[in-house]
């Protein structure tokens, strides 16, 4: 029993990270209105940035998160300029393929400049353990879950209680209409994209702290997880995407407990496909913006 609870905690932690990735992802898709394949790479760039900060300015977690956020923000600008700006009126698949190209570009450049090998990220946080009966949870896991929840709430506030949030939502719902009422759609879209990427960067850093390693080739798989998580959440809905992330994380880990880790992605994507079969738009009732 405790064993399963322990596994549940692992799943929860994993899921929390997926959730954070998914939140960023769904902000991007929601506001820009186009699907991206670059999210994984963007996240890893954030992680690398803060890795180098840790190298030269000592391990200061807060600083690390800020740097990761900003680095990915900048990446977001590039992504926007390259993959979105000129494709708002084009068929969707074009910008999609463009993002695929961009992610290939970033991934390989990263391999060239940072090397293909794993780079250790040790002792960023000193880990303590708390025992509740036979089940244990580490301070790192608590930190991750807390941070994710906090960010999710903050984002929710920004989205639904600030002027900026209203602009973001208006753009995500109807670009033309937003334009009519005098919102600078392209600028807002870019900002939204950057916010999403920034959150991705934080997620990236968290992942690397959790796995204690950063590697240029990590991005692809993570990006796909983020993608599937936010698809589960209906692609554009922040809260449901977070839920999707959690679900995938838990399903994965519980699946692994009964079989083997070789089936991890089988569980993740199998679950996704199953949900899509029965609820074609994921957890949400109806899709927000048409993507």
């Amino acid at each position: 029993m405790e064993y399963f609870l322990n596994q549940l905690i692992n799943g929860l932690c994993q899921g929390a990270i997926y959730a954070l990735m998914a939140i960023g992802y769904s902000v991007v898709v929601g506001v820009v209105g186009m699907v991206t394949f670059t999210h994984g790479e963007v996240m890893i760039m954030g992680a690398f940035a803060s890795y180098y900060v840790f190298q030269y300015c000592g391990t200061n977690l807060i600083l690390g998160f800020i740097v990761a956020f900003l680095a990915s923000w900048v990446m977001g600008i590039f992504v926007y300029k390259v993959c979105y700006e000129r494709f708002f009126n084009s068929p969707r698949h074009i910008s999609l393929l463009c993002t695929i190209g961009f992610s290939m570009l970033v991934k390989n450049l990263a391999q060239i400049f940072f090397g293909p090998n794993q780079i250790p990220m040790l002792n960023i946080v000193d880990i303590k353990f708390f025992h509740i009966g036979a089940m244990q949870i580490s301070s790192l896991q608590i930190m991750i879950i807390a941070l994710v929840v906090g960010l999710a709430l903050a984002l929710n506030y920004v989205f639904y209680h600030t002027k900026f949030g209203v602009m973001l939502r208006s753009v995500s719902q109807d670009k033309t209409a937003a334009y009519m009422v005098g919102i600078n759609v392209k600028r807002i879209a870019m900002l939204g994209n950057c916010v999403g990427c920034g959150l991705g960067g934080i997620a990236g850093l968290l992942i690397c702290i959790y796995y204690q390693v950063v590697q240029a080739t990590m991005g692809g798989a993570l990006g796909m997880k983020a993608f599937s998580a936010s698809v589960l959440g209906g692609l554009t809905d922040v809260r449901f995407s977070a839920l999707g992330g959690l679900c995938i994380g838990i399903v994965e880990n519980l699946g692994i407990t009964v079989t083997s880790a070789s089936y991890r992605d089988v569980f993740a994507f199998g679950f996704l496909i199953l949900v899509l079969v029965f609820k074609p738009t994921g957890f949400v009732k109806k899709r927000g913006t048409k993507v």
Partner: protein
Amino acid sequence: MKKLSMLLIVLLVFSMALFANGNKEEEAAKAEGFKGIIKIGVLGPLTGTNAEYGVGFKIGTQMAADRINAAGGANGYKLVLIPKDSKGDPKESSDLTRQFCDDSDIMAIIGDFTSGCCMANAPIVDDAKIVQLSPTASNPKYAGMSDYCFSIMGRQDGEAPFFAKYIISKYMGLKKIAMIYINSDWGVSAAENFRTAARDAGVEIVAEVNYVQDEKDFSSLITKLKAADPEALIIMDQGAVAQVINQVRAMGWDIPLTTLGPGTSEQLIGLTGANSEGLILSTPFFFDPQVPELMDWKNEFNEKAKFNPTVHPACAFDCVYLISEAIKSCGDDVTREGIRENLARNQYTGITGPIKFNAEGDITRAYLICQVENGQYVVKKGFDYSAE
């Protein structure tokens, strides 16, 4: 229809580019006073996840070639190495192997790194009757695939039993262990052999889990293993060992760790820091600080590569010497078949120890027990297993 002709033109250009070749090296070598040149193809993942090892191959082999040529070459012939990047991708590897096979100047192929690539190349080298001598392929099925396939890493079914019998049961004196291994051709066969050996040695495997390449999160696996409460954990992998170790410690599980695969890799210690303290592992070969020429070799390598060598480049180094020995004993008419025959027949002692191929083209190695003590690999000779 413009497109059709466009296609035609592209094709023509393309084929022209393919057929164009020619070389001046022969004359250059003659001028230097060699009888001629003998080319050896070197395959390795110079890029990609295993790049570290591929680069190791390149440098190790080049060091060997330089030494041989400095000493008057292999039987008067200058050895020229042609390193190519297989990226650890079987398709890529096969193409490059074909390329080597076509080039009649190339007398032998050293490589590839992974067993998968080597096995993909086996039919090709078998057709071309050219030696494929892999420094590192340890899949038991590999060498048997063709008369022209050789490996000097020592097979899984050599190392794993040693590990079970001597390290686990004798040296550590344990009865219950847990096993985590990578689900790749290497890992699976390693685990397989370990299981059988463990059964013979009376060691019980209370839990075993596996994972695929590029796995990053081991927490649930570790929880699983922890639940079985073993006396020690054995990790079978090259790439992810460091992560497993770190995550085991990150989950506050202080269990004796042993690993089968990475050998005495400096990178491993770099990646794990204090976490790998006390890690026990087996290695066919160890850069023993007591042996000066080994240290020289290590330093020379480090100058060229800017990182410390594992066992793999050392094996690659030996491969070149093996080939050159084979060439020597070929006498004057050096042929691919000739090299194969002599390679199979010869006996040679390289820096990684004595090498004598069995009928299949594999060798059985003697292994050392190492342990990590304050960030250094230390050879433990707890008892003399070789006597048994």
